[in-house]
């Protein structure tokens, strides 16, 4: 790896909920500009890792670094300010708001004007809001949602909601993007489009992306490096080929199926 620090690094991250150790000794290092994956059976602790990285959970132990800066224990909004954005496993849009409003809310974190400025008709604030609106529209156009800007977000079809959630995350101008099961509920054609989409936003927005995914075709198709989590423990890592043939990984997934069939 080059002299640049990794965009994201976790060191010995462990979290316990009461008696349950949901994640233990989680060590990953994500190089700049890469698309990497985190996989594992249901309940392995993947979403929990996301929640730790984005500040929703405080790890019992260990540290998280963003470009070499320690961000452990920062509240979620600070983490976002530092440049990490995320989507949620079960889509969480602002459902009473329009598509455009959703994206503008994402842009708020980079807004400089204060809350009391709009009522006082401060010109700089009006200008900034207009720019923000234009940027949000441009972003929506670039993800193919421009035509739907005025629709209430809850009325969107499922695939478009996923896309909007990603667009909203992009509006926060992140360096590092976390996607929690972006292909869930998509048909093969939609997931193919999603894969192209993910690759495209990486270059367009100069991003590093970590994604959780159960759809192996998507994982193998976009990820350059993959970590495998089982019962909160990293059991393997490597490129898609290595992961595909790793007996431990196969066992973890088969074990899950065996118990499910039992």
């Amino acid at each position, binding site marked *: 790896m080059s002299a640049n620090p990794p965009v994201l690094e976790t060191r010995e991250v462990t979290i316990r909920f009461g008696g349950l150790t949901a994640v233990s000794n989680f060590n990953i290092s994500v190089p700049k500009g890469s698309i990497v994956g985190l996989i594992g059976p249901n309940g392995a602790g993947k979403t929990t890792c996301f929640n730790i990285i*984005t500040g*929703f959970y405080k790890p019992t132990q260990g540290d998280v670094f963003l470009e070499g800066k320690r961000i452990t224990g920062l*509240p*979620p*909004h600070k983490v*976002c*300010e530092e440049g990490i*954005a*995320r989507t*949620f496993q079960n889509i*969480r*849009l*602002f*459902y*009473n*708001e329009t598509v455009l*409003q959703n994206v*503008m*809310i*994402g*842009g*708020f*974190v980079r*807004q400089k004007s204060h*809350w009391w400025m*709009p*009522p006082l*008709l401060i010109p700089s*604030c009006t200008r900034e*809001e207009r720019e*923000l609106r234009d940027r949000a529209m441009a972003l929506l156009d670039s993800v193919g949602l421009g035509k739907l*800007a*005025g629709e209430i977000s809850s009325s969107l079809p499922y695939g478009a909601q996923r896309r909007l959630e990603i667009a*909203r*995350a992009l509006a*926060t101008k992140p360096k590092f993007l976390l996607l929690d099961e972006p292909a869930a509920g998509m048909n093969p054609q939609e997931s193919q489009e999603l894969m192209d989409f993910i690759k495209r936003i990486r270059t367009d927005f100069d991003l590093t992306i970590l994604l959780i995914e159960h759809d192996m075709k998507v994982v193998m198709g976009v990820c350059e490096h993959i970590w495998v989590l089982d019962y909160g423990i990293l059991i393997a890592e490597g490129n898609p080929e290595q992961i595909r043939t790793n007996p431990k990984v196969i066992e973890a997934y088969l074990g899950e199926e065996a118990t499910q069939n039992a």
Partner: protein
Amino acid sequence: MKTPNKSRDLTLTTAAVGLLLVFLWWANGHLDNYKIQVLNLIAINSILALSLNLIYGFTGMFSLGHAGFMAIGAYVSSLLILPPVQKEMIYILQPLIWPFSVLQAPFFIAVLAGGFAAALLGLIIAIPVLRLGGDYLGIATLGFAEIIRVVFTNLTPITNGALGLKGIPNYANIWWNYGWCLLTLFFLIRLINSNFGNVLKAIRDDEVAARAMGINTFKYRVVSFSIGAFFAGIGGALMASLITTIDPKMFSFLLTFNVLMIVVAGGLGSLTGSIIGSAVITVLLEWLRFVENPIDIGSFHLDGIPGMRMVIFSLLLILIILFRREGIMGMREFSWDSLINRFSRGGEAR
């Protein structure tokens, strides 16, 4: 999406405000005192409803503390506009302490001070209480309002205790009330339609997602709560000067209930709804007074039934919640576009 026609809307809005002013000027000269009083109450209730709607309808914080903020606004402003001689006369239990005994301010400043005092209290309350969510927040804010009432009953050297304040100068005429109402409306329209307004709605819709989007949800809940408290204080200050007599008993939970009723009936998350709701509910409440007054129809005499008004009123709230939860407007707002569209479509149909 249609591009909004800005200059046309501005013209129409200016015309509408002008029309309102002409109407008020006419009303002031031609209507009887009782009707003018009702018009005044509509303006003040609008301010109160708009402020509660900001807190509950737009930011999703279920607050039952409005009466407390109104009490603060009412007392602060009344103490500033009561002439010192008058103060000396009404404080018979214990004299009013300095500096309140000599402080004096013009009406506008006094009302503003009432608003700021309420906002300050809102801020102080918000910081501990807004960590709670949902119904616990409701109960805690209700608790604060009750504490304020008890404190005002006992703080005789400042509030004149249970006797309250009498003979407050009646400055709150139709111009002041509607002036403040329009100011509140303007402030809130600008606020809600800005991106900050979007952020408040985001916090209401999904706080977790809002935090993930880099929004310091706690901070902005505090801001929204304090702005709401500010306008509640303004409303209380105007109310005190309109009815000229206040005491701690007046600021009970019932007062909050009335405002809540207006907000729910008008539509949670709709400024338009709060204005329409204020007009409808205020008129309805006044109209319902007839069931409490004795009536004579020919030789037939009906005794008034005290309490009947609130029976009908609370029944109405239950019915709204059960059968039309979105109220009159839901989350929709008035816009010239929709009005014009409706007119032109109506024209085509005919």
